């Protein structure tokens, strides 16, 4: 299951996505995030419980701001830290284009 966290607005499109089939719940992305925007939660995937990374609720509404530093550095540390390649970022800031 791929969960997309984020939104599109007039300034662009900002999404952090987590693939629960690849995520091991190891928390490397949580440690790597300089903004503490991520967390690992126990969640139901079908009828089994699994530890999966997700974007914390308050951060989901303000990703443009929260992930801004990584975006300017063109290096999303959560993505870099994820060995099984479960975390992805889609970033399109039209104001900087």
């Amino acid at each position: 299951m791929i969960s997309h966290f984020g939104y599109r607005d007039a300034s662009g499109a900002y999404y952090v996505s987590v693939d629960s089939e690849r995520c091991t719940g190891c928390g490397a992305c949580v440690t790597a995030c300089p903004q503490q925007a991520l967390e690992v939660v126990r969640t139901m995937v079908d009828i089994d419980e699994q530890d999966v990374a997700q974007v914390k609720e308050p951060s989901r509404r303000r990703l443009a701001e929260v992930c801004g530093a990584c975006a300017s550095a063109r290096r999303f540390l959560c993505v870099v830290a994820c060995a099984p390649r479960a975390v992805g970022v889609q970033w399109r800031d039209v104001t900087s284009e």
Partner: protein
Amino acid sequence: MAEFWKWPEYRKTVPGKDWRSAAVVTAGIDVGSVGSKAVIMVDGEPYAWAVRRTGSNSPDSARRVLDWAMEGTGLDDGKIHFIVGTGYGRVNVPMAGKTITEIACHGRGANFLWGTSVRTVLDVGGQDVKAIRVDEKGKIVQFLMNDKCAAGTGRGMEVFADLLSVPIEQCGELSLSVPEEPPPVSCTCVVFAKSEAVALLRKGWSREKVLAAYCSAMAHRMVELLNKVGVEQEFVITGGQSKNLGVVRRVERLVGFASLPAPNTDEGRPDPVFAGAVGAALFAKALYERGGK
């Protein structure tokens, strides 16, 4: 003063069915931000269901809607083998053996209500919109929820119904009666859209034209979400706004194909408002059979 936003609460028991002869009785309770739904299933088939407006106190809403669904059936909590809670207020379903996210429940419920060919589910609730892609088993493949704000949701429609003095069940139809589609309101934010609507009315716009502009803005927002996860047939709409034809028809126009019609209530299938509660009741059965009580 008439309260135009007030949508009707209702319940149903499927005639000719009896829980006493069933091996497994389960229930799903979906406490939404605007409506609370309960579905009771006997051996995995819908038996009784009810929907009520959610009160300010979630545990009480769960209790009231389950009691109403059980009314006249002779059932009580002790006779239900397993209860699953879901929805925005799912942490406040004290009688639930387990809580499951509404995303999983809507996927499973849609798969049950419309069949295994469903691939895309758009759930439009009172306070959020979710675009969900499912496989043939109803398992979630991908999902996106609008976490930015409650713009363009059922609650916004309630505000509009009151503002325009149009009963909420008629808003959708009325919005479709415009001779020509107006441009969507520029902002679906409930607060700003309200002042924009007032300005349009002052400019001489008819109520149907204002409704059309708002429904159109809602539809555009929903299709943005759908495009992110990818919209594929068969396509269904669940949640309270599945009853709003003004939004449903406009979403269909934008995606380029129709959504499946609602299942037949007379054939013992609850309407699409209950998709989440149906999914929860099905999960309850699976969990019970696995020995999870």
